[in-house]
């Protein structure tokens, strides 16, 4: 997982300016590369999966496909999001499968020079180190770049 994260890191650095979509989760600013995002939808109630962990909200119908929805906030170890219509579901493709991520709101599209990406400073949380692949400063706020592959591991490991 660590090696994989580094590789993605490299890719990001070698690229020219890349566009990222920034959004907020539990009041913190995060972003994902725009190419990783398939679509952004407004939150609508999902179907609960029995025996699911707290960060798995349930499943949703995306044009006939059943896709799981994760609460990013709970995934990052922050408080659980009280999902409402103001929230958004960011549909991304991980491991070749569509997955929905619940975020508070989408902010804007930002253009990032790869050289501006700073490595995640070591903090006392293993999860954070894994999930965040780098940070950048944008309009005087810190935006965290999410390492998608680490956040959404292979489905087997998600369920107990």
């Amino acid at each position: 997982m660590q090696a994989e994260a580094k590789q993605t890191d490299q890719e990001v650095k070698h690229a020219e300016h890349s566009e990222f979509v920034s959004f907020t989760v539990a009041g913190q600013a995060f972003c994902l590369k725009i190419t990783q995002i398939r679509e952004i939808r407004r939150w609508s109630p999902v179907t609960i999966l029995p025996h699911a962990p707290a960060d798995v909200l349930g499943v949703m119908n995306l044009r006939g496909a059943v896709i799981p929805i994760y609460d990013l906030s709970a995934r990052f170890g922050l408080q659980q999001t009280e999902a409402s219509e103001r929230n958004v579901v960011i549909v991304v493709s991980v491991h070749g499968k569509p997955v929905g991520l619940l975020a508070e709101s989408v902010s804007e599209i930002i253009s990032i020079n790869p050289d501006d990406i700073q490595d995640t400073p070591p903090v006392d949380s293993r999860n954070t180190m894994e999930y965040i692949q780098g940070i950048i400063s944008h309009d005087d706020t810190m935006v965290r770049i999410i390492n998608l592959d680490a956040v959404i591991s292979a489905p087997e490991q998600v369920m107990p």
Partner: protein
Amino acid sequence: MSGSIQDTFFEECEELLEATDEGLTAIEGGDHDPETVNAIFRAVHSIKGGAGAFGLDDLVAFAHRFETVFDEVRAGRMELDGKLIQLLLRSSDQLSALVEVARDGGEIDEAHNDTLLAALDEYIPEEEEDLTFEPMGLGAPAPVADLGIVPEAPAEPQEETYRIRFQPLKEMYGTGNEPFFLFQALKDMGDLTVKLDENELPGFDAMDMSESYLAWDITLVTKDSRSMVEAVFEFVEGLCELSIDGEGDAEAEANALAALDAMFSTPDAPPAPPAADAAEGEAPAVPFEPPVPAPEPEAKPAPAEEKASAPKAESGKQEQRGGPKPTLRVELERVDRLINAVGELIINHSMLAQQIANLDVSDTRDVETELEGFKNLARDIQEGVMAIRAQPVKPLFQRMARIVREASAATGKTCKLVNVGENTEVDKTVIERLSDPLTHILRNAVDHGVEKPEDREAAGKSKVGEIQLSASHRSGSVCIEIKDDGAGVNRPRVKQIAIEKGLIPENAELTDGEIDNLLFAPGFSTAKEVSNLSGRGVGMDVVKNAVTGLGGRINISSTPGKGSTFTIILPLTLAVMDGMVVSVADQTMVVPITSIVETMRGSDDMINSLGADGTLLSIRGNFVPICDVAGSLGLYRESDQQAGVYLLVETETGQRCALAVDDIHDQRQVVIKSLDGVCGEIAGVAAATILGDGKIAMILDPESIIAASPTAAAFDTERRMSNAS
């Protein structure tokens, strides 16, 4: 182009072969309906015709022999006895094999082919002449002339006088055409008189050397058809002014139609030469089929009008049966796209409805009526599309009958395959991928399972081994069973072989079930010598892998002397299922209807406590443990609603249990969406489905819900213990 036509031919062949098989099986089962014989004859004949068009000589030769024998049967000159039926069944198999070879390449088993041909020949009367088939170029637009040539037309065609006016344009000379050669060609066809019309020729001074002034009036008396005459002028078409008048042309056309009629109705009427002409031009739309230059009258399926007028009784009968329904072949992917699109359409509808409800408009009645219509239409579309994807297993099972016949012939045993639940609908992909494992199991069943006839007699069984192939839906899965009445698994031998091959240690203590399952171990094969049939170095482990690949599981159970049963349980990936839509703790869920015995609304006096938290439902004096679905799934009710509706279900082991749910809404067909890859296995949930409102609902697995429920599971254990004591 020819490639796609050929594909169409092979696809048609498959259907025709299926029809042949079905017919022969019906006859074997005692069906003496002449129409069945006719249907087979037509099917084989169509195969022959198509094969002729593609120059598939082996196929043509075989189909012809087959057809000839059948013609004898049809004409009532031959009795369909058991021996002949067996031969015909085997021939039909060979026909399938030949079609496969023609399609996929490969080797024809010449010896087998010749044996069958020889056997068929014995039934063919001496005078029957061998036919040769002219392969026709289908790839290029067939020249009209070709269609006109009807080989060996038995009747002498009538002589016909054509008056032709032929006036070349100057372009004709420009392209190097020469009238003389045309006249020569016409002369070859019959009695020719050519008269030059030089009226338009101007005086020598006024003449332009590059212009064309000459015209000819030609009178031709010939036996050849009009199209043949036209064909002569084919290369100068558009380069000349041409008119061809047949003597009494109208009469000729009438003759042609009459001939066509005769062709389709009475078997002995010779096809008159103008028939092809008529079919080309005026005949009512003949369904696309490679043109068959066949002397037999049934060359083409008769167009509706002709059939109606046909004097034979067969037409009426065919209509009664409804005949084969017209079908359309569609790429699977397109259907899937449609399914998804319809799902979205329904979501879209519910969103629209929501928006309208939110609008600040006083009178929305009109809109709501229209919206309701929209909803119903969307539902119709959805149901229709879903029905496309699911298909009955019948064709697959029919193919399996052929496998059993082949295997029986190769081993010298007699077996018959009994199919049960042919109409069970299974997803198309599953059907396709089931073919190989089923083939393997059936071959094994014949080769290893069913004993030799003499052994069977000694054991007091009927000489004919019976293999039952059945399909059914069982608690959200498809269950395919292959059951033979053979000797069962020879456990001591299986164990011994497993030890010899080092699959298990020598001192292993195994239960009977464990020994049976050794059959699925990689590299296991019990055949004493490697027979031609099964045991090609691959064993049942391949079958197991194939089934596991489909997300299913396979089991074997066996009783010595009585036979073995293979049970394949497959998930219903995308298969259709009847489900009861219920609500549990504010969630909508679906319970497979197959597992529900009855439903009832419970009242307090029906519920009895047992121990600290066990509850039993009393149903007509019987006590059944209650299993709260919400509790079992770990869901909590937010509202005060109580689980007041009970679904009485029966598990595979015969245990009964009452599933407590909040309410029952509906009973409907749902399409199963696998949760594989979405999340891991969830206890109590078999799969998911998308409901009409676009919401996802879990499809419950009663078995595992009961297993997860402390009450019911405990009760089961208690009861078993009490039964034991």
